[in-house]
């Protein structure tokens, strides 16, 4: 059981990096909107896993995307931030009951799943574009990019998570 879970995680890791760099980095909607779809990795990652491994994995996920897209290490910084904040966000969205053994993402309501994904995306994109632009004189640009790219990531993220969600009993 553990092996199949780890295998799934590794497969997801590789596929998400490839899809991100080969498809979504070349999208360029309206010239600059490239959805950062790879953060679905954090959305799908099992809840009851070792946090240390999770954070380290997320760091390398960001770093892989960075190496492909020549963005220094800003993807890594943004991803590691949401990886660290994920339990806090989950407690905020799902309440205390996410800590129970039986809790599964599929059992929560659509609204909760949506909020969870949206919060992950907002924090990630805010860190990402702040580091990318890195000057407060352009704070409007940071907000504009966070908003537009965030919305596109959210839409595609919902589509993807619906497409690949395991069936409900």
């Amino acid at each position, binding site marked *: 059981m553990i092996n199949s879970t780890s295998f799934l995680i590794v497969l997801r890791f590789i596929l998400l990096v*490839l899809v991100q*760099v*080969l498809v979504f*980095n070349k999208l*360029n909607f309206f*010239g*600059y*909107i*490239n959805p950062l779809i790879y953060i679905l990795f954090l959305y799908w990652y099992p809840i009851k896993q070792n*946090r*240390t491994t999770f*954070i*380290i994995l997320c*760091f390398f996920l*960001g*770093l892989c995307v*960075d*190496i*492909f*897209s*020549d*963005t*220094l*290490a*800003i993807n*890594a*910084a943004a991803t*590691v*931030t949401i*990886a*660290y904040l994920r339990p806090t966000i989950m407690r905020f969205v799902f309440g205390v009951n996410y800590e129970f053994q039986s809790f599964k993402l599929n059992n929560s309501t659509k609204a909760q799943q949506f909020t969870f994904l949206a919060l992950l995306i907002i924090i990630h994109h805010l860190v990402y574009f702040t*580091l*990318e*632009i890195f000057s407060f004189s352009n704070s409007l*640009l940071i907000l504009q990019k966070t908003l537009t790219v965030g919305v596109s990531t959210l839409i595609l993220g919902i589509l993807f998570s619906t497409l690949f969600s395991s069936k409900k009993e």
Partner: protein
Amino acid sequence: MQQIINFLIRYKIFLLYLFLLLISFIFTFQSHSYHQSKFLNSSNFITGSIYTFSDNVTSYFSLREENNKLVEENKKLRDKLFNNVLLSPSKIDSTTVDYEVVRGRVINNSYADQRNYITINKGKNDSIVQDMGVITDKGILGIVENTSDNFSTVQSILSDKSNINAKIKNSNHFGSLVWENTTDYNVVQLIDIPRLVPLTIGDTIVTGAMSSIFPENIPIGTIKRFDLDNSKSFYFIDVELFNDMTNIGNIYIIRNLNRKEVLELEAETEAND
């Protein structure tokens, strides 16, 4: 001691987070100087191979267009040849040429970031080194930044670190080509042109002679709009690029055979000051 260990165990996740964040910050900020981080770039073997694979698939879709471009360029070169603009072939040998051209292909291109890099399929094995100029048939593209055995990354002119010597074609006044409005990928800015220079919209901008990277007179673009900058003594010129930065296939890498000599001489002169 016990307390310190307890503290470490209690906050180990937070400390790990801080540590990883610090590493990414180091990678990010050490390269705010001129050159990109040495090992975090897409010119390595794995990324290069994956991008080559992807390019092998996607390049078929634009074959016809690429062919047209190349035929168009051949036509231009033939025009020059028949009008004797170039030296006669017998005069060209290794002692008289200043520049050598290597051809290559773009395997990954970006133009939506603040600093855009282009990955090309030529590297150290083709004697590509840092700071060689990269052009297309229409105009300049960027400067080689990192190389691996078979691949290189090129800092595009669409980068807030880019700074290239350029001049106005008919008057020879020179300035620096930068990219300040980092959301528009068809327009770059020419600064430091004094206000006494007569300008008209549509004037051609070409590379200047002060660079040891690009030869003189490589086309860049045309003046789209110009205005005085804050100091009111220099122009701030929007230059519309000849190149469509979103659609680049075949490129040429230029090696300046005199570059080493020029740099050595300049370093010597500065040291003597």
